[in-house]
């Protein structure tokens, strides 16, 4: 009986140094697939390698042997001794392997649950396997089901929908205020990794330009260069208030960098355009009272973290729903795999009836020779459909027994009844 096996490591089981060894080189996927093709006991194979996971999905009749071969292939390609990484590996078989790959594709096994990249990476891995012709009947079906499951999880749960990082939460909020970021101007006050990241994020989502202000102008210039922005001096902040739409602050200043009075003064000149403050500085850089001004919104780091915490909880809850979907689909898939066991018997049954028809037609060749070709055609159709009707019920019966432990008995009985094994 054919088994589906999953061997690999992810961000939980192995440190990055180890994962790097197996995923470092560009062609490591190709080389692994090549190795899979050359190992006899492995029928089909697929190799996934991303920054958070390295794993092989294979099918085999001889699971123990296949596992051993796969591990030694990995050790060879990663150029590390087996003992160094075998304790970091996880292996799943059959139903567990199916569940695992469904969970991976649906991003339930990711470092950040619900992150969207993984599906693309798996699709790429599958495409590679089809190009290298290492994917066959089972993997084809399995991967298509996995994509289907991922899609269901994405549309039926909210797992991918909410932001779980400060910079992404800031982008989402900005979109709730401005609808789109196209043409919006961003002012970055101070420098800090998180603030820079938020600014970069805003830009990739369409923000038109970024202006950077810093107490030391040199630093502003340096940061501006990094993120393709325009540096301005700290004194220019007040005049920038008239221009920009989004302000990110992250300075170490003990006093407010932007005060209520400054902003209030700017409203008229801004013609009431909305202004969105993202205050990442601790202590806060933007006077909190500014939030009470009309069309102006101030979010400090705690507000953003609050949103993220809520989204995290939500993802966890949605995760339960997603696990249910995954399980449901895995059960369906398992049923399909089991039908594979009856396929050879069904094929021999069909072959047998086909060969009987051919033999009998040959025998009656003389009697049939006087018929017109249309009549001959009718006789052939008639015999074929009779034969099909006769074997139809046994086939349905076998398919119905796929889930039963007594399946082998029924298969055996069928082969004997129809004398399938002594024919050639």
């Amino acid at each position, binding site marked *: 009986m054919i088994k589906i096996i999953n061997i690999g490591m992810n961000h939980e089981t192995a440190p990055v140094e180890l994962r790097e060894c197996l995923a470092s080189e560009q062609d490591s996927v190709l080389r692994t697939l090549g190795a899979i093709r050359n190992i006899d006991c492995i029928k089909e194979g697929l190799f996934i390698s991303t920054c958070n996971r390295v794993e092989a999905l294979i099918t085999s009749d001889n699971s123990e042997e296949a596992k051993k071969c796969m591990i030694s292939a990995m050790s060879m390609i990663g150029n590390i001794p087996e003992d160094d990484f075998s304790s970091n590996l996880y292996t799943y078989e059959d139903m567990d392997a199916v569940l695992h790959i469904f969970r991976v594709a649906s991003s339930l096994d990711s470092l950040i649950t619900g992150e969207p990249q993984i599906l693309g990476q798996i699709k790429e891995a599958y495409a590679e396997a089809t190009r290298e012709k290492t994917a066959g009947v089972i993997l084809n079906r399995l991967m298509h089901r996995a994509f289907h499951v991922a899609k269901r999880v994405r549309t039926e749960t909210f797992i991918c929908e909410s932001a779980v990082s400060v910079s992404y939460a800031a982008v989402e909020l900005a979109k709730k205020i401005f609808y*789109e970021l196209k043409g919006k101007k961003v002012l970055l006050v101070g420098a800090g990794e998180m603030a820079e990241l938020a600014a970069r994020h805003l830009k990739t989502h369409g923000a038109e330009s970024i202006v950077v202000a810093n107490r030391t102008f040199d630093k502003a210039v340096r940061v501006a260069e990094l993120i393709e922005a325009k540096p301005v001096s700290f004194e220019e902040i007040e005049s920038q208030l008239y221009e920009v739409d989004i302000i990110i602050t992250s300075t170490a200043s003990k006093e407010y960098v932007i005060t209520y009075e400054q902003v209030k003064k700017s409203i008229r000149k801004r*013609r*009431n355009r*909305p202004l969105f403050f993202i205050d990442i500085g601790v202590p806060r850089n933007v006077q909190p009272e500014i939030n009470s001004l009309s069309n102006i919104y101030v979010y400090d780091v705690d507000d953003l973290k609050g949103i993220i915490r809520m989204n995290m909880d939500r993802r966890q809850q949605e995760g339960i729903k997603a696990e249910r979907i995954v399980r449901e689909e895995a059960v369906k898939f398992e049923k399909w795999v089991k039908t594979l066991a009856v396929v050879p018997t069904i094929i021999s049954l069909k072959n047998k009836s086909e060969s009987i028809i051919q033999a009998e037609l040959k025998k009656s060749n003389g009697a049939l020779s006087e018929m017109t070709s249309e009549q001959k055609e009718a006789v052939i159709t008639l015999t074929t459909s009779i034969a099909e009707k006769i074997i139809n019920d046994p086939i349905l019966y076998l398919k119905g027994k796929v889930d039963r432990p007594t399946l082998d008995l029924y298969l055996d009985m069928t082969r004997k009844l129809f004398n399938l094994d002594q024919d050639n």
Partner: protein
Amino acid sequence: MENVLYYLSLFLELFASLGLVLYIFRQKKTLFWCSYWILFAGFICHTVFLGYRYYLSGMAPVIHFKAALSFFSWSIIGVYLIFQFKFKLKVLGSFVAPFAVFLMIFSSTMPWIDIPVRPIFKSLWLTTHIAVIFIGNGMLAIGFLAAIMYLIQEYQIKHKRAGTFYERLPSLATLDTINNYSIAYGFAFISFGIIIGSIYAQQVLGTYWQWDPKEVWSLITWLFYAALLHQRLAAGWQGRKVAIMTIICFFILVFTFVGVSHLLGGYHSFRNMGLQETI
């Protein structure tokens, strides 16, 4: 026949509204589109009903309050069905349809009285006057609902509450745009409607304007909307202020529509449109 159409459209519109309200909580596209097309079917029934009334009476169906409410409801739904394609904002329907159906239910509680129409009202000019103003009112009603949605969403963002409505409602900019668009077009329609009305008044009554209470209040409403548009264009008002002002303007409009006809009388009021009242 009329009753069947009236109640059929009420039923379909009510059903669609329930679907659209449910859509806020269960974000299923099919749920939305089914409700949308049921609403459309209700609108068609409603249109046939109004057409039939027009055929019978020869006047736009505003002879009494019941008819006027149903006509108002019809115009809101009609404008919404078109706006949906412009703004592609599904949740708008969840606010507009219940509002329109509320008017319709209110209208259904009143008895239907057939009053012969005074001949002076049987004119295409007059029908156009009424229809144009009602379409304008429908747009202004949608502007009003967009303003309410704006204030809800603004409250959520200001107070940092990322609740159900925060996710379901669109961005502030989108709601502000819908408000702007509805008010600008609605204002154009009511202006045009008032002009048609006064031209007709000149023809049949010999004067463009005669300080009838409805005329006075229409002028007040018109001035308020004009002020709103002016503030937006000239003073750069937007967002919250505009939303609040829109709501105030709409209440004045509702008073002109309901209050003036019932409280202040005049030749625009319902009781003076029927024939027997004047005899």
